[in-house]
């Protein structure tokens, strides 16, 4: 434990829940595996959604691809939050003060803001958008940003262990 970490992180790491996660033989590895599996669900769905917004799978109306992909992305994100919280809680003082983790949190915030902006910009128009028609430039830019941001989030996640 890092003694000079913020009190809230130390308290979290010293909590009974954190101790239970560390002392269980399977909880930590299970959260680790679950986090990676959830990542494949999340990143796969986001990539399909972004690819459609960028013009791939043009024969399908955008809404037919974006809506189901968005549902899967939300499920993946929820699983990532649950498993990630377990991993974070077990080592809160170390992970919370890790610069790569802090960059990751900032990038997640950026990715979510970008997603909300894209969703607002699309609005109800998504359902009436036809196949084979390029989407507005603003939406395509947002999709490109999304791909870039989430790839860096994944990279930061793995790199926490190396800094």
């Amino acid at each position, binding site marked *: 434990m890092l003694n000079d970490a913020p009190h809230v992180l130390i308290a979290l790491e010293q909590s009974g829940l954190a101790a239970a996660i*560390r*002392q269980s*033989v*399977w909880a930590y*590895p299970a959260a680790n595996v679950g986090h990676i599996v959830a990542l494949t669900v999340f990143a796969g769905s986001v990539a399909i959604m972004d690819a459609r917004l*960028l013009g791939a799978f043009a024969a399908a109306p955008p809404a037919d691809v974006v809506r189901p992909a968005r549902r899967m992305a939300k499920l993946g994100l929820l699983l990532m939050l649950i498993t990630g919280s377990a991993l974070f809680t077990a080592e809160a003082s170390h992970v919370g003060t890790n610069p790569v983790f802090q960059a990751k949190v900032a990038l997640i915030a950026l990715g979510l803001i970008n997603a909300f902006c894209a969703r607002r910009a699309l609005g109800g128009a998504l359902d009436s958008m036809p196949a084979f028609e390029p989407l507005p430039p603003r939406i395509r830019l947002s999709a*490109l940003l999304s791909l870039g941001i989430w*790839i860096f989030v994944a990279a930061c996640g793995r790199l926490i*262990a190396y800094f």
Partner: protein
Amino acid sequence: MLFRLQLGLLLMAILPAAVFAHHGWGSYDAAKPLTVTGPIETTKYENPHATITVKAADKTWTVTLAPVSRMQSRGATPEFVAVGKTVTAYGYPSTVEKDEMRAERITVDGKTVEMR
């Protein structure tokens, strides 16, 4: 065109990750291996890595071991690294944390267990 751009982004993100991945033990100085022997003062049999503190002749070392499941499967049970046992740990000193080392292998009661 767009797919080429995406591929470029992907490569940009993956390449640095591949480079850094070589440095999993980067914060430990493998050029200065050391052997620490002494009684175990504290044991944390916890994930993601078990740790023990060892009272050596000069100072007390914090020795980072392996994940709990690996320790168990190799016979390094909680009893194996119980407080009071005399342990010999071969490993590398941390370049970040003072008096911390990561064990390559530990020996207790004549039995050696690999940590990697």
